[in-house]
């Protein structure tokens, strides 16, 4: 009723891509009324990539966002006190993809080849470099990187044999697969530790309104739990349709995409609960950013870039 909605606090959540599935916990939490239970009314806004999410947070236009860890560290290096509070894509949501029928099986097979990269984030570039340098190859000498954009151009790049592999987000690869460009992930399993985008808010908010963060995280985590229960698949899809009706028009397509995205939000270390951020991997992320030149030097206090306080507390609550 109207009486209730008057008491709701308006919260803006900025996501980096135009998709309800990629931000599925939010949409489920909205649809299931978890936010309303916390007295929040969440408005989702789509901007262009993680950089824009962080800019919107810094400008105060958004309260929460879902950028990648790389851009977050770069932003912190530029004095933006944004803090990672929840690990959403707990397993690497990037992969080194090759065509289904291609002969390449391991990253080593890509020696002397061209590797395409996708979005403007630059995160998948770092990811590809990590994977390939672990295989003892260095860019420019053993392989070439080529920015091919996403979707259509990426397909064109495969068709024109301009790239042998494509470093892409899992969602992008799933879409390509659904559209008849079957891809195979040749990323070794150990790279799954490189988690992807997660919940971020500003340090001020954490200091000034910790209870707001708790409310948001609580609803968010409930949404994620709900969505991860296979029994709730159809209900979840309905919630997505409320946010992005067009995305769910082809329900089978959307359902397959949901499966792919959801599988990457399952934590590697189940004992730590949902949303846990492993500090060791943060060190690795920072090292790889420095190696890429995205960061000039290690941050003064890397531990200030993230906090597990909220997920730990809420996980315990929801047990």
């Amino acid at each position, binding site marked *: 009723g109207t009486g209730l909605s008057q008491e709701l606090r308006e919260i*803006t959540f*900025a996501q980096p*891509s*135009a*998709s309800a599935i990629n931000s599925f916990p939010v949409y489920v939490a909205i649809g299931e009324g978890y936010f309303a239970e916390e007295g929040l009314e969440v*408005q989702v*806004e*789509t*901007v*262009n990539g993680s950089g*824009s999410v962080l*800019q*919107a947070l810094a*400008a105060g*236009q*958004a309260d929460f966002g879902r950028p990648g860890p790389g851009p977050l560290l770069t932003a912190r290096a530029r004095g933006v006190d944004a803090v990672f509070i929840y690990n959403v894509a707990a397993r690497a949501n990037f992969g080194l993809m090759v065509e289904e029928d291609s002969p390449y099986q391991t990253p080593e097979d890509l020696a002397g080849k061209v590797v395409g990269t996708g979005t403007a984030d630059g995160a998948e570039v770092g990811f590809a470099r990590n994977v390939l340098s672990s295989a003892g190859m260095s860019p420019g000498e053993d392989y070439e990187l080529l920015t091919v954009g*996403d*979707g*259509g151009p990426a*397909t*064109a790049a495969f*068709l024109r044999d301009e790239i042998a592999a494509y470093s892409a987000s899992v969602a*992008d690869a799933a*879409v*390509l697969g*659904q*559209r*008849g*460009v079957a891809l195979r992930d040749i990323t070794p399993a150990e790279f799954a530790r490189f988690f992807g985008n997660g919940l971020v808010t500003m340090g001020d908010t954490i200091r000034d309104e910790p209870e707001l963060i708790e409310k948001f995280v609580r609803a968010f985590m409930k949404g994620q739990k709900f969505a991860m229960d296979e029994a709730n698949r159809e209900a979840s899809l309905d919630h997505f349709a409320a946010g*992005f*009706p*067009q*995305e769910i028009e*082809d329900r089978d*397509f959307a359902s397959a*995409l949901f499966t792919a995205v959801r599988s990457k939000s399952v934590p590697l270390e189940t004992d730590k609960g949902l949303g846990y951020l492993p500090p060791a991997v943060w060190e690795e992320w920072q090292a790889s950013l420095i190696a890429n030149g995205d960061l000039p030097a290690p941050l003064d206090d890397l531990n200030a870039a993230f906090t597990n306080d909220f997920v730990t507390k809420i996980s315990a609550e929801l047990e």
Partner: protein
Amino acid sequence: MTDTAPDQLDDTVWVEKASLIDSIPRPVQIASVAVVFITVWQLITLSDLVPPIILPTPLETWNDMMFVGANVLSGGYMLDSLWTTVKTVLYGYALAIAIGLTLGIIVGETAFGERAIMPYLVAIDTMPKVAFAPLFVAWLGFDIDSKVALAAFIATFPIVVGTAAGLHAPDANARMLFKTMGASRWQTLYKMKLPTGLPQIFTGLKIGSVGVMAGAITGEFLGGGNGFGELIRVAASQLNTPRVFSLILYLSLVGLALFAATSYAQRVLVFWHKDRVIGAEG
């Protein structure tokens, strides 16, 4: 006088060729171009040049247009999106007209404007506007305001140029006449220069009407909202190219409508100007 003189029937042979193609009625001409266009499109999709996720077939696109049309007509979510975009475009156009006319008057009326301000306007216009989108979002938020600002930003420059050129249009006689009548600068501007320059001003407005569409969609691509730009982005990220194409075709209809409305306003306001207006006839 001489038997080589032909009778009049022969003479009519060199009548100005009423070119065959020009005697075809206009709708038929337009339709025939569409047919050629669609045929070429179909042939490309039939060939192996382009995979369907890059270029859909005309039929797929048509079907999708029917779907989108049905959704809009039945008041579905696409109607809301369309309305958001149309609002953005209209507000953006109004804003661009207000700013463009003001700057155009400054540039066209003052030597300072022409010599010192115009170079900056040119420089700003050569910048990729996309880079300004985050600024607008930061200042104006995620509502349509930020998209309106971007749309207006892109559409303003041609209006400035058209207005400035229009103000230079009146001839020495008209200027002298107003001087003899002791008209103030403002009166000269308002009662003579602006009306005289209307044709050029409308050229700027028509180019601007095209730019404002581009700006609104760009804004929706970059700064969220729920307009058609967002729908295109969703469809593109799903590689749903028939949808992308059908949404774009609808947008181009909106753009054409704005262009046509501007042309219509020109015909009504500049009723005395009988010149052909390129691409603007009914």
